[in-house]
């Protein structure tokens, strides 16, 4: 296990920090540490939250003391219980790229000095890792996007971005679970919903999952969208 440090944030949270970079290997260590901490079921721990390169451990300071908790965290991370396995699945997401679903596709093509078709090809040619979720329920921060299409986020965020929007910001890509403001670039839309509270498992994407996008045309989008609405 690599080196890490444990840093307190106030009196009810500790953060286990790994190397400070966006890197699948570092992220894998953070997610494995989070699984180890969950499996250890430490008394007084209320939530375990892996991010790109850290794990936040929220605890009740009346139910556990700081020194003891640090010791238990170190122990659980360095010698994980056998049950602490990271499960991950591969998810394929259909996307109708461009036109009114992807108003920023021309700008990204310009940035990449490529055609829109080539941008779509670059976006669909990689398998992305879900590094973490945040921002809103089911919003997955995925990467790493090909540097040729890694446009920095918009100067002025859009006030309203529809649910299902597929977007890019720097080396990150994501799918909007619900309508919300966003500074990311919109390149397409999927009928798939990353968060649906009526599903048995409301969350489609979880940390460490692998996600691939594939292009569909508008007819196929409409057909899938209708099928989803009626189910």
């Amino acid at each position: 296990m690599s080196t890490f440090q444990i840093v307190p944030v106030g009196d009810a949270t500790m953060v286990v920090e790994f190397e400070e970079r966006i890197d699948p290997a570092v992220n894998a260590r953070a997610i494995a540490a989070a699984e180890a901490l969950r499996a250890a079921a430490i008394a007084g721990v209320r939530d375990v939250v892996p991010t790109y390169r850290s794990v936040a451990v929220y605890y009740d300071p009346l139910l556990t003391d700081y020194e003891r908790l640090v010791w238990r965290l170190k122990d659980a991370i360095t010698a994980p219980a056998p049950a602490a396995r990271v499960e991950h699945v591969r998810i394929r997401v259909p996307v109708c790229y461009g036109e009114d679903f992807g108003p920023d596709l021309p700008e990204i093509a310009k940035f990449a000095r490529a055609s829109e078709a080539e941008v779509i090809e670059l976006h669909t040619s990689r398998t992305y890792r879900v590094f973490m979720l945040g921002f809103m329920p089911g919003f997955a921060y995925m990467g790493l996007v090909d540097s040729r299409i890694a446009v920095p986020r918009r100067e002025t965020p859009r006030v309203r971005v529809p649910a299902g929007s597929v977007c890019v910001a720097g080396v990150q890509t994501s799918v909007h679970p619900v309508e919300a403001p966003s500074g990311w670039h919109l390149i397409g839309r999927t009928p798939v919903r990353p968060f649906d509270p009526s599903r048995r498992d409301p969350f489609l994407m979880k940390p460490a999952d692998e996600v691939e996008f594939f292009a569909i045309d508008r007819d196929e989008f409409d057909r899938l969208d209708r099928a989803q609405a009626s189910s």
Partner: protein
Amino acid sequence: MPSVYIVKPGLLTTVQDRGRWGSQSLGVSVSGPMDSYSHRLANAIAGNDVGAATLEVTLSGPELEFDDTRTVAVTGAEFELTVDRRPVAMRSALDVSDGSVLRFGRRIRGTRAYVAISGGITTPSTLGSRSTHLPSAMGGLDGRALRAEDRLPLGEPLQSLRPFRQSRTVESSSTWMLPDGRATLRVLPGPQLDRFVRIAWDVLQSAPYVVGSDSNRIGYRLVGPSLETPGKLDLISDATPLGVLQVPPSGQPILLMADRQTTGGYPKIAAVISADVSVAGQLGPGDTVRFVACSTREALSALIAQERSLMAASRS
């Protein structure tokens, strides 16, 4: 099913329990009461389990009608209250029955009051909590603030707990002081304090900050001495705990409150101690706040003192 009927909703009244813990790794905000001490005190006085859902009232209070014999308690921000037009006291067990009306009058000080009803509010639970999270429209009643003519179901009161007599009023903990336009909040150093210029920690404590008008359950935008970082920081987003002071490039800190997002990329200079987050929950736009450094030991003692007063309230 016994229920409480919303005659008038007040400015912003939501259902809150302890919060939606355990799903932050999926992007789900914790939510929960802004002043968890007063939320818990209300439950203790009404004879509820600590997990029961209450109503969080903001600045202007609701009018509630009951259809069953219940014990009700109102805590937090100081309001004039009546039950069936008779003045009643805050922080005391109020007996209501079929047809009783609890009406909030003038607000005296503080921002948020909590209404606990014996048996608790039993709107559907989402991901383990009834707390309303307005930004994602989750929990509470259809994920929104209450409206006139809403009706909220009530649970079965716990028979084992005997509520207070109507005449008795509970004292608050000495570590929870209801702010009257200003508060002092104790802070511990944040995880990125070393990213700020060396004097930033002293600057933070040098003068009061004003709570900005665009402050809400997500967080308070504070206006005051600027907290500088040398050059532009490029931090990788990580978790954003309750009570953290994060600082965007403007140098003006944002105090993260109940409905905050689960992650964020701004440096965190400090964290308000748990006991004082409940005090922060009573601040509103235009109020002033001072930050003062404390020790981890002091943070824990303050929380223990609050816990003792809650235990005393539920035992009596």
